[in-house]
């Protein structure tokens, strides 16, 4: 079961920031450290979740896996093969194995194409299938697979004639055309109505079981991540700060940031209207150009002590069962609970009352 299919080691992506003339003359350079030394292993046939807030680097990581972006540093291995800096034919072969479902099903498909053309294009680009007839029969097969049936009815439709859910099915069908082994799904259901969201996830999971696919599921929604993924990695400012089996990360949270994320999630149960939510975090997320020294979470952490910013950044440590956390004080926090807090939660800014 746990045969690694994709291994990332110290994966890094820095984007240069545009400089003005003085900065160019002085030779100053600033970088957005979008993904900063991220390491993970994805096993064959599992659903691996990357969660975090916007700007945490989860989509960039997805694009690095897709090789849509040049990797700045670190290595990426796919089935034992180093694919960090491949190009040409090797890249083409790689792209056939790794496919992507995008967040917005409205803009990820050419509005002038029919579903038939959308699905035909990857086959033509990669020159798969011997003639149009064979290709068409595959298309029909896959449309049935994603429950867009009868296929004849959908083949002639343009994207605007499909509902959001149907579009995401068509997008899934497109990724399946080349028979990939890994699918990177970037927020595939965030723009779809709640009533059909579960249906899409259900279909994706069925396909995964039938075809032995591996998914990388990128999301900001912890609840669907819990439902859909096998293992989760929580990212903050370009770094994985906690990783493990989904249930374990969510029910036995160790990192203060993950704790805050989980406390912030709303759940459909009664009796919460008149209570102010305790979200154990302070301030706002800093810019990725200016990553705090030491533990990058320390300015927002309620449990931070001096060594958190004085000493080097903590690395992921295994606490058992594959559950890893990058926090110096995790054991202490787990033992003491709220008593381990060194500062108060805030709404982000100082507030005053109207009455005064």
């Amino acid at each position, binding site marked *: 079961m746990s045969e690694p299919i994709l291994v990332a080691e110290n994966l890094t992506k820095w984007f240069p920031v545009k400089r003005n003339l003085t900065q160019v003359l002085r030779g100053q350079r600033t970088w957005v450290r979008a993904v900063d030394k991220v390491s993970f292993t994805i096993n064959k046939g599992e659903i691996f979740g990357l969660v975090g*807030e916007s700007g945490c680097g989860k989509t960039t990581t997805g694009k690095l896996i897709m090789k849509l972006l040049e990797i700045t540093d670190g290595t990426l291995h796919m089935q034992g093969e180093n694919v960090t800096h491949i190009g040409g034919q090797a890249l083409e072969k790689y792209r056939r194995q790794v496919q992507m479902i995008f967040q917005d099903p409205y803009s990820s498909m050419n509005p002038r194409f029919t579903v038939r053309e959308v699905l035909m294009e990857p086959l033509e680009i990669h020159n798969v299938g011997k003639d149009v007839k064979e290709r068409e029969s595959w298309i029909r097969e896959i449309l049935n697979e994603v429950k867009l049936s009868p296929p004849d009815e959908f083949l002639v439709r343009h994207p605007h004639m499909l509902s959001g859910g149907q579009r995401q099915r068509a997008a899934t069908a497109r990724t399946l055309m080349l028979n990939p082994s890994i699918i990177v799904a970037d927020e595939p259901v965030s723009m779809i109505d709640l009533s059909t969201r579960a249906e899409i996830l259900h279909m994706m999971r069925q396909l995964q079981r039938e075809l032995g696919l591996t998914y990388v599921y990128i999301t900001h929604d912890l609840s669907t991540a819990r439902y859909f993924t096998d293992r989760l990695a929580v990212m903050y400012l370009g770094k994985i700060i906690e990783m493990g089996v989904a249930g374990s990360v969510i029910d036995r949270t160790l990192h203060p940031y993950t704790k805050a*994320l989980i406390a912030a999630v709303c759940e459909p149960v*009664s*009796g919460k209207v008149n209570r102010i939510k305790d979200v154990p975090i302070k301030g706002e997320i800093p810019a990725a150009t200016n990553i705090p020294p030491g533990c990058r979470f320390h300015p927002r952490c309620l449990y931070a002590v001096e060594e958190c910013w004085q000493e080097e950044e903590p690395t992921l440590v295994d606490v058992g069962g594959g559950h890893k956390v990058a926090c110096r004080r995790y054991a202490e926090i787990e033992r003491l609970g709220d008593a381990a807090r060194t500062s108060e939660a805030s709404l982000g800014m100082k*507030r005053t*009352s109207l009455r005064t």
Partner: protein
Amino acid sequence: MEKERILEVRDLELHYFTRKGVVKAVDKLSFDLRKGETLGVVGESGCGKTTMGTALLNMPTPPGRIVGGQILIGGRDVLKLSEAEVRRRVRWEQISMVFQGAMNCLTPVYTIEKQMKETLQQHREMPKDEAMKRMVQYLNLVGLPEQVLKRYPHELSGGMKQRIVIAMGLFLEPQVVICDEPTTALDVVVQAQIINLLKELKEQLSVSFIFITHDLSIEAEVSDRIMVMYAGRIAELGTNEQIYGPQGPAHPYTQRLMAATPRLHEEVEELAFIPGTPPDLVAPPTGCRFHPRCHVVMDRCSRDDLPLREIEPDHLVACWRCFHE
């Protein structure tokens, strides 16, 4: 104790006159809003929840027109007033709206100060220093420092922009504030902070909120009463306890939506989903509009038009099943 009714909506109808035909986006909607409460409005996209919000301000988006009903604020029908009067005395004075994607509501070329001042000048004659004082006061109220006044929108984070738009909605001390998906584009942590802010504001200012969202989980957190809309009509209206309490909601649509919502702390093997898509409102299904997608449908559902009936105090449902039992 029955609380004072601030807003009464009676048989409100809003239609969009499109080339394809008349879209009955809001169809005979009636409800009340009580003083100091938050009424949540949930439903899928296209169910008419945002349309209803714009109707309450008497500013339907073209080609929409309000074709019937009453909107009573303090006993006065807003729909009978002229546009000039609505502008002067109702819109923003008595009822204001925080729009969806509020962060994009701010003009990128003006400073926050200029944009806030504009609202104020349109409605009140006020000396400069007093206007300034008021702006700072409201910014502080939503947890922002005075310095943001000099900033342009792009210099602020999404959460800060959302706070500014909320401050502007509260500015003229309206009795009712309609919030349309105010937290949708925000990250979970910021979302929780905005929800906390709205709760505090409700308590401090005793304004009533109408909170529109597609997310049932957020409604559980903020709304005293919840109105579930489906295809332009009310499917179910009940208190937070009636909808989210242990006995669960009464309408099959709400039940299914609830079962489709993933829970954070529960391991669920399969989530429920609702087959099909919401109906085309040019030619909605006869009888109960939910019947083609309903899992407990009966003969009667497709035949007979459906009333909204009280099944227990404060709990209204439009479902033949619920009336039989």
